[in-house]
């Protein structure tokens, strides 16, 4: 469960050379029933697919135990598809060198 003070978004960028990587990352959250945390609880093992600007598959990751994922993409326009039991969500996102796209995705 995320505590109220935690920063939403993907994993820590410590040690990542942002000058050479265009990162798309984030966290997948689902509203919990009993958790009382407005941002929801992280969804581990959701499947996040990265599609290129033609809609072709490029990569896929399961979210980690904290609901987080990270892609090392090339600069440009991408589509994310998030799959979890009974859920499919699609989002558009841009990647650029030096500025990570850090997303909070509610499912």
């Amino acid at each position, binding site marked *: 469960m995320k505590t109220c003070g935690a920063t939403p978004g993907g994993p820590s960028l410590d040690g990542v050379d942002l000058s050479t990587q265009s990162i798309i990352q984030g966290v997948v959250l689902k509203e919990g029933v009993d958790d009382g945390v407005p941002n929801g609880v992280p969804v581990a093992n959701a499947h996040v697919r990265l599609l290129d600007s033609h809609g072709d598959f490029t990569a896929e990751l*399961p979210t980690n135990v904290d609901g987080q994922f*990270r892609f*090392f993409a090339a600069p440009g326009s991408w589509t994310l598809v998030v799959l979890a039991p009974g859920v499919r969500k699609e989002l558009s996102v841009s990647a650029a060198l030096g500025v990570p796209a850090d997303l909070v995705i509610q499912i």
Partner: protein
Amino acid sequence: MSRETALVTTDWVTENLKNPKVVFVEVDEDTTLYEQGHIEGAITFHWRDDLQDGLVRDLVSKEKFEALLSKNGIANDTTVVLYGGNNNWFATYAYWYFKIYGHQDVRLIDGGRKLWELKALPLVKEVPARAATRYVAKERDNSIRAFRDEVIAAIGTLNIVDVRSPAEFSGELAAPAHLPQEGGQIKGHIPTAKNIPWSKAANEDGTFKSEEELKSIYVGAGVDLAKDTIAYCRIGERSAFSWFVLHELLGVNNVKNYDGSWTEYGSLVGVPVAVGA
């Protein structure tokens, strides 16, 4: 080979969880997944520690493979059922590996770990204790494995299928987009290779497309299935997936996986390289 002999469904798995003739083996790129939960009774192989020699870049020796299977209670007549994360990449690599060493009955769960999770089927943390066996492997079957010299000789004559993403094929990326961008010394692809990403063969839930769809993907991209085919990617796992599609599901003979793949080819001195789509 065919879908009936090479694949099992998640329903089949549920019905065979207690079948003593069956051993489920999870093989993941992210080796922490097994500890987080796995199919009841499943063991795991580590793609690097168990399946790579470690000193030289090669498969483990026949003796080490025999020791691995014996230690994990797999016998020569066991039905080995493989599955894993990442659309079965590393599980299909292990499948190819079992075939290299001549295991009789090896299968793959269609959809792998992803479909199992998307169906919210149960995962357990208990690691099974299996009685050891005395497994005897066959000599390596190199008819399904390509080496660099035959890849170079295949340029312009045989089918070479690059199963990486279009961005890796063109030279834009050096590795799949979920990994840091490290790869061969240079970027690009083997000249005359057709780029048919492994993912074209999979549905969104990780299951394989139908045989008709699969065939049209390869034929439509200009692969003459009457000719010999070599598949490659970056380190040989994704190309094992495409080898599985061609050799095991479509029953095409003379398909080889080049497990040296781009990390080897892209570091060779003096070989031709192409860039662009």
